[in-house]
């Protein structure tokens, strides 16, 4: 049985376990499995051990710190972290060392979390498999020949491989939820604006959102508590009260009205795989068994999420990524450009990988003179229709349950030459970003030794209900307790658990 972050925090506060001891165990586990998994692009062991020692010292001095003080965490390499290289897994930021902390990094420091390192990701968060990292792919701990999902694949894999009890991800079109599903862990994309984006390297600013990833719902709730809240440094941050998420987890779900949106199971004639559909339908029955009311609901404009997303996200990206010009920071071509335009072109040609270039090109085209109305404006209008579908569904439902991915984790290299196939794999997750809704992915079953995710989507700012339902599910079904060790016939990492529950050692 594994130690959860909540239990670890409790033991550290009770001085039954030291933060240094737990941190050392995580670093040891990383040394054992990183050669196979490659979840991290940088391990910050000195920083981690000094943070851990500081927490132990403060605990010994009788300070009353938060519930996650002293608990190690893995950080996606997209959050500016003062003094620690922050690369977005791109050559163009390979040597960038931020002079400031993102707001979430500051919050994590204040809450006493211990930074194990920076996790691998698709370059600038553009991808669904972590294969677009400039520093090589991450492997799925359940089957090393398969992708961990993306773009927060490193964070999800670090959790699944038992290298860290907590992680941070970011989600623009599914980048927390899809890797959580592929790696059998729990990941929440909060409501757009719930968590400050200050210091998050921007990809698509109207869609990007930072969120917690963990091995169960309670840990996710505790981590969200640290991250959430208004920030004057982010003008899109929402000034709404943040409830006590852990306090409502155990409330009953029998009053909940749960919708199952038909269109999430079939996109333009191609149906999600049988294993995925079975797991999601079984999950709906679990909620019925807990007393919730379940019925089918329709969100017809889901059929348009792929083109809408692949216009809006690249359009915003082409603008956001204009800042990488080799002038103030990041890579600059060593070739000695004759003029400043050549400097830009050579620098960007050398610094960006193929997927990033593709999206910059798509976005530049969609925003260019003569095409703006046909593409960007049209996509923004269809985005309104997608939002309205959800508004209507939420008139008489509290939550929607749906697949996270149309299929089981695919093989490394399987979709890399075909961007269209890679894009379609995001079909079930994009809509929540389009409408700004909170959505969680939790393990809901296994097929062929590989995990299957369940998505629970809530009303704006209602993370509490999403977490409560997800928690109830995890109490009723034990899928989240499995580790890759339990996958027979798969060449995954062996789960020699470094941080067992102390009393059972």
């Amino acid at each position, binding site marked *: 049985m594994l130690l959860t972050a909540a239990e670890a925090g409790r033991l550290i506060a009770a001085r039954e376990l030291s933060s240094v001891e737990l941190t050392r165990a995580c670093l040891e586990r990383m040394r054992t499995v990183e050669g196979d998994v490659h979840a991290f692009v940088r391990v910050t062991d000195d920083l981690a051990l000094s943070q851990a020692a500081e927490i132990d010292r403060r605990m010994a001095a009788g300070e009353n710190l938060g519930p996650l003080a002293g608990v190690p965490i893995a950080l996606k390499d997209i959050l500016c972290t003062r003094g620690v290289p922050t690369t977005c897994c791109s050559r163009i930021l390979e040597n*960038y*060392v931020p*002079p400031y902390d993102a707001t979430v990094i500051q919050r994590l420091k204040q809450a006493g979390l211990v930074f194990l390192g920076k996790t691998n990701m698709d370059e600038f968060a553009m991808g669904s498999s972590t294969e677009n990292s400039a520093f090589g792919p991450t492997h799925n701990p359940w089957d090393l020949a398969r992708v961990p999902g993306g773009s927060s694949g490193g964070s999800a894999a670090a959790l699944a491989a038992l290298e860290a009890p907590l992680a941070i991800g970011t989600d623009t079109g599914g980048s927390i939820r899809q890797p959580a599903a592929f790696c059998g862990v729990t990941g929440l994309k909060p409501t*757009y*604006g719930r968590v400050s984006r200050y210091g998050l390297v921007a990809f698509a600013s*109207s869609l990007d959102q930072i969120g917690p990833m963990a091995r169960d719902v309670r840990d996710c709730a505790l981590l969200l508590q640290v991250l959430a809240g208004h920030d*004057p440094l982010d*003008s*899109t941050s*929402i000034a709404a009260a943040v409830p006590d998420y852990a306090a409502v987890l155990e409330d009953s779900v029998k009053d909940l009205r749960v919708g199952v949106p038909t269109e999430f199971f079939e996109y333009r004639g191609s149906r999600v795989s049988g294993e995925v559909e079975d797991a999601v339908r079984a999950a709906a029955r679990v909620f019925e068994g807990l007393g919730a009311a379940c019925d089918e609901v329709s969100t017809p*404009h889901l*059929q*348009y999420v*792929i*083109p809408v997303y*692949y216009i809006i996200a690249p359009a915003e990206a*082409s603008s956001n990524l*204009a800042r990488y*010009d*080799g*002038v*103030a*920071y*990041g*890579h*600059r071509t060593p070739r000695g*450009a004759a*003029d*400043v*335009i*050549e*400097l*830009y*072109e*050579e620098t*960007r*040609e050398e610094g960006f990988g193929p997927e990033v*270039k*593709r999206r*910059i*090109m*798509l976005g*530049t*085209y969609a925003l*260019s003179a003569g095409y703006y109305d046909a*593409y960007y404006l*049209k996509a*923004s*209008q*269809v*985005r*309104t*229709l997608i*939002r309205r579908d959800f508004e209507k569904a939420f008139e008489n439902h509290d939550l929607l349950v749906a697949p996270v991915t149309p299929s089981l984790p695919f093989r490394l290299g399987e979709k890399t030459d075909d*961007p*269209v196939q890679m*894009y379609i794999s995001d079909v079930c997750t994009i809509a929540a970003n*389009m*409408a*700004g809704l909170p959505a969680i992915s939790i393990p809901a079953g296994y097929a062929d030794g590989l995990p299957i995710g369940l998505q629970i989507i809530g009303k704006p700012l209602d993370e509490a209900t999403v977490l409560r339902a997800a928690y109830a599910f995890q109490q009723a079904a034990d899928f989240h307790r499995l580790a890759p060790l339990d996958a027979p016939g798969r060449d995954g990492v062996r789960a020699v658990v470094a941080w067992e529950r102390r009393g059972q050692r």
Partner: protein
Amino acid sequence: MRLSQQEVEHIALLSRLKLTDEERERMTTQLNDIMRFYEQLGELDTTDVEPTSHVIPMSNVLRADEARPSLPVDDVLENAPERAGDSFRVPRVVE
């Protein structure tokens, strides 16, 4: 609508990306494949539908125009590919 290699070259120029011949060729095929999706949006009549650019009500966030501490110049220039005194150095922009 299909993009030609010349149009892709022009988009690359606007994007400040210098593509190799091979990249341009591959990019032309891939962009055209992806843009086939875009045609699906033509199935919908969106006359009079308000566009969504942001999901939350947006207004400018203002603060008092007062001087506040900022990052030290040396910290900021620490990441500069090339610096000259307290400035970023770039190739000549105006002749």
